[in-house]
């Protein structure tokens, strides 16, 4: 495995002023588009972006208005990792050097339909950075449950009613599933902590081979939140301990943020339309699940 190098930090001051993703039709306050915009500014001009069906491809590629200022392509829904791997292999075979291939796929495109191809890509150690922007449901098709939709969430396929309180399963443990491939570099991030996110992208940029970043990206349309609170709510999720910031590198887990105490889960949930129906027992279930997870992470990753 390639060793992750000690590389200079990127920040708002030293990042390029060039934009590679603009003029798109994303909803106001779209967290996914923030993730794509920031990542591409770090990755730079010599980038091939591959995006499966999903919000970012739907809003970015409507002929003749193309929103990517660098090379980009919509992939098959289940095949974003393999198409990106093909791009990397083709460009390498043609003798191209100093470029990066990146996938931007949603939670459904990653944890559900695209998972087989992603697992294959990591197994082959293809030279691709795979970024999953996680807005916790199939938002492009109108807010349906995915494998990363958290417990309790009301979606259009998990309605909250008399019999079922919305989504009855917890999020798949995507980060650890990816790490279990013994990938060279994997990380979790949130657009609520952009500095952390861009530096993880920068780290992955410098690794030759398969890398993965799971970035939490809010969705006002699907979450029922005001558009101006997108970054704040993505930060709240981390502060409430429902999303954690971590890395997997050289076979070791690293917890990047280990708060002494968490902010209120109830407050985080009640800000969002998708969780409004949740009972005290449901909220307790979310908290218990969080605590179990943190106990394990603190025990093993610190």
């Amino acid at each position: 495995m390639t060793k992750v190098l000690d590389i200079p930090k990127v920040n708002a001051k030293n990042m390029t002023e060039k934009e590679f993703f603009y003029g798109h039709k994303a909803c106001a306050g779209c967290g996914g588009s923030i993730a794509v915009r920031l990542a591409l500014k770090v990755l730079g001009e010599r980038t091939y972006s591959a995006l499966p069906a999903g919000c970012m491809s739907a809003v970015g590629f409507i002929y003749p208005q193309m929103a990517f200022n660098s090379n980009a392509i919509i992939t098959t829904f289940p095949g974003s990792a393999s198409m990106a791997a093909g791009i990397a292999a083709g460009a390498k075979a043609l003798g191209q050097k100093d470029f990066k291939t990146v996938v931007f796929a949603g939670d459904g495109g990653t944890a559900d339909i695209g998972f087989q191809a992603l697992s294959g890509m990591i197994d082959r150690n293809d030279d691709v950075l795979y970024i999953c922007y996680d807005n916790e449901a199939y938002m492009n098709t109108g807010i349906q449950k995915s494998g990363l939709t958290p417990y309790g969430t009301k979606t259009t396929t998990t309605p909250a009613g008399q019999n079922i309180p919305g989504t009855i399963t917890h999020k798949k443990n995507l980060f650890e599933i990816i790490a279990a491939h013994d990938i060279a570099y994997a990380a979790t991030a949130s657009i609520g902590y952009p500095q952390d996110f861009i530096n993880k992208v920068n780290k992955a940029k410098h690794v030759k081979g398969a890398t993965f970043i799971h970035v939490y990206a809010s969705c006002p349309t699907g979450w029922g939140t005001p558009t101006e609170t997108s970054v704040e709510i993505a930060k709240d999720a981390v502060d409430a301990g429902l999303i954690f910031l971590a890395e997997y590198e050289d076979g070791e887990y690293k917890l990047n943020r280990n708060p002494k105490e968490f902010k209120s889960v109830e407050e985080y949930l009640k800000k969002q339309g998708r969780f409004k129906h949740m009972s005290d027992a449901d909220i307790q279930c979310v908290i218990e699940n969080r605590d179990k997870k943190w106990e394990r992470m603190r025990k093993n990753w610190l």
Partner: protein
Amino acid sequence: MKSNKIFISGDEAVAQGVRLSRPHVVAAYPITPQTITVERLSEMVEAGEMDAEYMHVESEHSAISATMGASAVGARTFTASSSQGLLYMAEGLHYCSGGRWPVVMMNANRSVALPWSIYGDQRDSLSLLDSGWIQVYVEDAQEALDLIIQAYKIAEHKDVLTPMMVNLDGFILTHTYELVDIPDQDMVDQFLPPFQTPNKMSFENPKNLGFSSRPDDNTEFKYQQNEAMFNAIDVIRKTDEDFAEMFGRKYHGMVEEYMCEDADVVLVALGSVCGTVRVVVDKLRAEGKKVGLLKIRYMRPFPVEEVKDLARRVKAMGVIDKDISFGYEGTVYTNLNSAISQIDKYVYKSNFVGGLGGRDITKAEIEDMYNKLYAGLENKSEETVEFFSLNVEGND
């Protein structure tokens, strides 16, 4: 002319054709009876005989996705599949032709489950006729090798830019050994120059590909795709002529007629069964019967002109279909009928469906088909679609 004949299987002949075509990326997933091809290709890469990236993809869906990705940066690509694998690729097949990526694929024609069968028929590829790929069906291992080389030239032509599927019958062609002439690499290089396309992403000229279209534009994209397929007809003919000039082997473009010049009754078929039909034609000709064979080589684009031309000259045509479109008739028959309906002449026709799941089609059965065509013609019978040599009683 340099000649180098070796004794190899159809699968190995395909691998040789691929090696000579110098693809940059090979991505394939194993499936019987295609596996020998991908095994040989990986051995060639290992031995340094092929300078290609060999991708061990985890599925056929990823095989087609990866080859599209590589093609989208201007690389020459190859994949291979069969049956269930080809069907698993189905989304990608449409995607690839719509993206105008000239991926070349070998398909080992095999039955489609259920019931499971690893043996040959043509239901896999024929069920994907509408996926926008050029489809050619070969008769022997030499044609398989030669058509891989031709396929790149046809698919990558600037007026075509359409992926191409080279079909060879599972086991009958993939696993039987023949003496095959391996063309000289220098001559192949001369015949097949490196892939050049404007339809690619690059750092000199960045592009957004694989995009969405609105209802205002979609029909125009599909129209262009259809035009490209029609453009392929002349390119196929010209490529075959150029190939013959350089390598001394000619396949007659869209179709090959055998003993059709003065024929009254002809059988129409695809692929390896044509070899058996030729033998029967020779026998019946010796008996004084004016019979012939139309070997359809290309199912897409369809050889409408060639079929019409022959239909004008003959009295009866029978189609052997190693496939069935349930609730109707064989797919080759449907396509042939549509072309024949364009001429102002009655031709007696019959559809013989069989050879499914690897069952042999014998000389006796083929002779019987010719006899039935003669009888139908004489008795002015209604046209029939029959499953031949059926082992079960019919309802009547």
